[in-house]
């Protein structure tokens, strides 16, 4: 079982890395924001597997906080950091 946990962690990490290509590539801001979703689920999965593999219960709390923060970050991004549609239409 420990080997499986470590292989799974590595696999999920590679998944996360591959997904980052979309963040770099875009092409729209919305595509980059998908990173929040990707990190939210994949990082939680990695942390939960590591918690079980190492018997570190505290990592489950980290996963919990990660899930919360990913949601807050995404909402803040959509509401604040994404240029409002009016800005684009206002330009001549």
């Amino acid at each position, binding site marked *: *079982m420990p080997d*499986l946990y470590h292989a*799974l962690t590595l*696999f*999920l990490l590679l*998944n996360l890395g*591959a*997904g980052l*290509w*979309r963040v770099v590539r875009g092409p*729209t801001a*919305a*595509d980059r*924001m*998908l990173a*929040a*979703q*990707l990190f*939210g*689920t*994949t990082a*939680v*999965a990695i942390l*939960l*597997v590591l918690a*079980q593999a190492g018997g570190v*219960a505290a990592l*489950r709390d980290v*996963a*919990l906080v990660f*899930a*919360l923060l*990913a*949601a807050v970050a*995404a*909402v803040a991004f*959509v509401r604040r950091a*994404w*240029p409002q*549609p009016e800005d*684009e239409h206002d330009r001549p």
Partner: protein
Amino acid sequence: MTGPDYLAALLLLAGALFFLAGTLGLLRFPDVYTRLHALTKADNVGLGLIVLGLSLQSGSWLVAGKLILIWLLVLLAGASVSHLIARGARLRGIPEWRR
């Protein structure tokens, strides 16, 4: 490895497969809306299967309950965030891909 171990391993591997599908969809699908479909849905089910597998392995109802709680939280966050992104993309006139 015993019977439950094999079942847990199977669930974990199936979960990993859905994560791979989510990432493939994220890279291959043609627009932000279809990518949202791939990413949120496949990853949510992938996480659900991994949570199930880990719950079996934890051997504790408390830990299993906590894992499911975390999964529900991720689901709730994912639903709200994907709605916000889709709505924001529409408001800003990002076109949909049509076959």
